[in-house]
């Protein structure tokens, strides 16, 4: 066989039809119910909010017991971030004080974050009622909801945050 013939024969072997190689698939199917304990993300539509309810009045005691040591009395700040105040400080030339009230665009984020990450020493320990209540308390301190206003899966996404329109998407992201 000439060199060319050998080369051609080799190429035919390479191109010969064969069974399709197996694509690696090592994930195991899991039922949505089995993901539930981890499925804690809540978007602005609030569709993933759990049942439960609470008011600022209910939340005051929760805050005092679970949050105040770090965030200070009436959430004015302690060793860790203040959660109230700063209204008007985003204005040009001012030193911004970015709090839940002055900066956060969505109330649903408050529920999402408290549930996943707070209280710091024992995250994921609060009941849904406690999370609704302490969210209501923080929003009430910021003058955003009333003292007796009930927060639940229906009402929380409807809460209008003062800085809701404060964000624009970065104009230089890769397309």
């Amino acid at each position, binding site marked *: 066989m000439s060199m060319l013939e050998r080369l051609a024969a080799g190429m035919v072997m390479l191109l010969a039809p064969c069974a399709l190689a197996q*694509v690696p698939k090592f*994930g195991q199917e899991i039922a949505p119910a089995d993901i539930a304990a981890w499925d804690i*993300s809540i978007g602005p539509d609030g569709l993933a909010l759990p049942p439960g309810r609470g008011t600022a009045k209910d939340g005051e005691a929760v805050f005092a017991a679970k949050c105040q040591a770090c965030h200070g009395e009436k959430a004015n700040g302690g*060793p860790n971030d203040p959660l109230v105040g700063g209204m008007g400080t985003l204005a040009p030339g001012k030193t911004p004080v*970015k709090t839940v009230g002055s900066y956060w665009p969505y109330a649903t984020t408050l529920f999402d974050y408290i549930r*996943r*990450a707070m209280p710091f020493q024992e995250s994921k320990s609060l009941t849904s009622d406690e999370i609704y209540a302490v969210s209501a308390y923080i929003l009430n301190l910021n003058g955003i909801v009333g003292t007796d206003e009930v927060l639940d899966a229906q009402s929380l996404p409807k809460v209008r945050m003062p800085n809701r329109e404060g964000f*624009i998407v970065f104009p*230089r992201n890769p397309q």
Partner: protein
Amino acid sequence: MLSRTRSEQAEFASGNGVVSRRVFLEGALTAGAVAASTTSATTEPLAVQPWMQVPGAGFTGYGQPSRFEDKTVRVSPPPPNPATQGVGASRTPLHLLDGIITPSGLHFERSHSGVPDINPELHRLVIHGLVRRPLVFTLDALHRYPMQSRIAFIECAGNSQLLNAPQPQLVGIAALHGLIGCSEWTGVRLSMLLDEAGVDPSARWVVAEGADAASMSRSIPLAKAMDDTLVCLYQNGERVRPSNGYPVRLLVPGFEGNMNVKWLRRLKLTTAPVMTKDETSKYTILLKDEKAWQFVFPMEVKSVITRPAPAMTLKQPGFYEISGLAWSGNGSIRQVDVSADGGVSWAPAALQAPILPRAPVRFRAAWQWNGAPAILQSRATDDTGMMQPTRTQFAAERGLRGVYHYNAIASWRIDEKGEVSNVYA
């Protein structure tokens, strides 16, 4: 007699003593003016030290740096609240390192609720939401996929934020710029796992979440997840270190560090971002007016001189290498210029291979210090043509209230005593 030909004449490339990079590119170590550097002669006879006479230590399971290198450590400020340790960061001592790879034990750390102690046998990664088949993966399963390696930087969006301050902060380079690291990351392409789950055509975002106590989470555009995002199992050849995401983390090349979610436990496909705490109240850039930039993904072109750097003293006039790192989240570094006169004149530095996209480049320039005060700067340009702004240009665009993504030109002042400090120039 063996002799080497050396050029007799130094070629200054820009003001105040920056020497042409041909010194590096042509391999000639000295040129006339540089050769004028004084080097004190050895005055003592060479001693036979004890370690030259007795056997050294035996073998060890896992090597450690020399005991004489105990100052080469990460630095971290004390936490504002001792009760919430693990919130914050430790920073890489850039001035004590060279090359582009950050030793894993010196890679900066950033956590929102400490470093979790994850048992890999119990760890799971779940992909769900807008997929045909929700899937769960064990670590053993992830290890069976074909992998790829990539040298890439991860930079915290909050790196260099002290340079937003009205007055220059008299702290070291680690405190100023030490929230960047570079590793060889090895793992499975996220697109492979997403394809296996079957992404619904309506999906646009992937919400990534960690297994730490804060369950830190970020929304990532699906296009980036399908492009070059890696599910990493290895860092610099060994399993990812705990504070860098053990046993599995995301690498989202070029994007802000916070999106490179560590301790990865969950990926949820959605139509819209979930607006997590870390993509609304944090990691957004308040501009000069009342608006804030949100979803600021790429870490834009940047560089910093790592040597000389604060805490270092130039003991005498003469030759010094100016060395540093340059990187861009948008691509590769095309050019780095250095200045020894506060940006009045510039000369191109030598770029050391490898020059890789979304990885730092080591740059080097030769400088002859004449003993007078000087201001050293570096200025990087990437292959999209974007050039690092001056601090004035940076502030003109966005103000100095943004905290995150500070990438303006940094300045080191050398005073007449040879002491190096952070200044604005």
